[in-house]
C-alpha cells in the first residue's frame, strides 16, 4: 500500500497531471489568500491587544486563544449558513465558490495569527517598553515598530496559520462542495479518493500535499535565515 502510494505520488508529480496541477494551484491560492487576509487583520489586532490595556482585555485574549481550537467543520457550517441563499448574505451567490472557501479559512486562521502575534509582541514589548517610552513613542506608534522587529517570529506565526489552512478539510468541504474543477482542493480530493476506496491515490495525494507544505516551510526558513544574516 505505502509503496504504491509513493509510486502514485511520484507518477502524479512527474506526469504533471493537469487535474493535479489545477487542484494544487487552487489549494495554494485559497490558503495563501486566506492567510494573507487574516495576517493583515491579525497583526495590528494582536499588537494592539499586546500594547493596550482596556476593560475586557483578559476575556478577549482567552476567547482568542480558545478560538485557535475552533473545529473547521463548525467554521464551515457558520459560513455555509451565512452564504446560503436562505441566509443573510445569500444574494451574493458565493456558496460553492473559492471565495466562500477563503472566507471560511480566514475565520479559522485569524484567531491563530492574532493570538500568537499578541504573545510575540507582548514579549518583545517587555524588552523595549522603557526605551520606547524614554524617546516618547506613543503606544499606537509602537505597533508598526514592534511588528517589524518581531518579523522573524511572525514568519513562524504565518506558517502556523498556513498549516492550519492547507490541512483542514471540514470547512472547505461544506462551503466549497468539492466540485470537480471549481472547488476541489487537495484535502477534499483526498477524502473523495478515500471514499472511492482508491487508497493508493488518496495517500499519493497526501504525500504531494505534505511535500508542498514542506517546500513552503523551507522557503520561509530560507527567507528567515537571509533576514537574520542581513541583520548581522
Amino acid at each position, binding site marked *: 500500500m505505502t509503496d504504491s502510494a509513493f509510486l502514485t505520488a511520484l507518477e502524479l508529480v512527474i506526469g504533471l497531471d493537469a487535474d493535479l496541477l489545477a487542484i494544487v494551484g487552487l489549494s495554494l*491560492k*485559497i490558503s*495563501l*489568500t486566506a492567510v*494573507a*487576509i487574516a*495576517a*493583515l487583520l491579525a*497583526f495590528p489586532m494582536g499588537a494592539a491587544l499586546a500594547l493596550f490595556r482596556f476593560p475586557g482585555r483578559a476575556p478577549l485574549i482567552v476567547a482568542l486563544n480558545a478560538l485557535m481550537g475552533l473545529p473547521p467543520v463548525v467554521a464551515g457550517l457558520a459560513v455555509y449558513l451565512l452564504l*446560503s*441563499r*436562505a*441566509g443573510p448574505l*445569500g*444574494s451574493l*451567490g458565493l*456558496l*460553492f*465558490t*473559492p*471565495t466562500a472557501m*477563503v472566507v471560511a479559512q480566514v475565520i479559522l486562521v485569524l484567531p491563530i495569527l492574532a493570538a500568537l502575534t499578541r504573545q510575540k509582541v507582548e514579549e518583545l514589548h517587555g524588552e523595549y517598553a522603557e526605551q520606547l517610552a524614554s524617546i516618547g513613542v506613543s503606544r499606537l*506608534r509602537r*505597533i*508598526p*515598530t*514592534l*511588528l*517589524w522587529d518581531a*518579523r522573524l517570529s511572525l514568519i513562524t506565526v504565518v506558517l502556523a496559520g498556513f498549516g492550519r489552512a492547507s490541512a483542514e478539510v471540514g470547512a472547505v468541504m461544506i462551503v466549497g*462542495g*468539492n*466540485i*470537480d474543477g*471549481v472547488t476541489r482542493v487537495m484535502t477534499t480530493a483526498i477524502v*473523495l479518493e*478515500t*471514499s*472511492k*476506496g*482508491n*487508497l493508493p491515490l488518496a495517500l499519493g495525494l497526501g504525500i504531494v500535499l505534505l511535500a508542498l507544505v514542506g517546500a513552503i516551510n523551507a522557503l520561509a526558513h530560507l527567507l528567515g535565515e537571509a533576514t537574520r544574516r542581513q541583520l548581522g
Partner: protein
Amino acid sequence: MTTYPGSTPANALLSRALLIAGLSLAATSAQAEDRFITLASTTSTQNSGLFDAIIPSFTEDSGIDVRVVAVGTGQAFEIARRGDADSLLVHDTAGEEAFVADGYATERADVMYNDFVLIGPTEDPAGIRDAGSAAEALNLIAEHEAPFASRGDDSGTNRAELRLWESAGVEPGGDWYRELGSGMGATLNTAAGMGAYVMSDRATWVAFDNRQDLELLFEGDEVLFNQYGSLKLSPERHPELKHDLADEWHDWLLSEAGQQAIGDFEVKGQQLFFPNADSE
C-alpha cells in the same frame, strides 16, 4: 517627517495580499460568466464516476457546465430547500414526491435505476448467501448478531436500508448494529476494516477498490430496487436560481441522448445504471 520602519513591509504585505485576493476574485468572476448550474446529487452517482462520463456530452450539446455537489440524499434535499442548488438528482422516490408535494419542486421524473446489494465478509458468519429474500438475509444477520455497518446519514441508501429492516420485522440495534454517519465509500472502507455486513448501491460497490475480505453475498430481490429521480425546482420558492439551464439538464437526462449516455457508462465492463425515463 519620520518614516517608521514598520510601514514598508506592511505596505508590501498589503499590496501582495491585495494582488493575490484580486487574482482569485478575477478568476472567480471569470468562472461566473460561464453558463453553469449547480447540481445537488448523491455520493453513489459521483463515486462511481457516472457524472465524469455523462456531463461532458451534455456540456458539448448545450454549452452548460454542471457543477456537482455530491452529498447524501438527505443533505441534497436540504441544499435544494435552501436554494443553494439549481437542480436535484437523488434516489429516494418517497422523499422526492414529498418534496414536490411540499412545493419545493414542480415535477420529478424517473431517470435510471440500479439495485442495492448486500455485502459481507467472505466467510459469511450469518449465512446470508443462501437466503431466499432480503428480509430473510437481514433476519439472519440480526439473529447471529453479526456486525452490520449502516450509513446512518439519512441518505437515500440509509433510508432504503431502514425501510428494509422495518419490512423484515427487525428493529436493528445493539452492539452489532453500527451507525457510521458516513458516505457509501467511507462506510464500505469501515465495513472492510471491521468485517461487517453492509448494504450498498451496486454502482459504488462495483467501482470500489478497497474490498479486502468483502464480497457480494446477496442480490436480486425486487425490494432492493433503487430508483433515481431528477427534480425541477420551484421558481416560486427560489426565483433567483438558473431554472432555464436546469430545465435543459433535466430534459437532456430524460432525452434519448441522455438515456443513451447513462446506459453506455460502464465500470470494469459492467453497466451500473439502467436508464428508465419512459417507464413512468
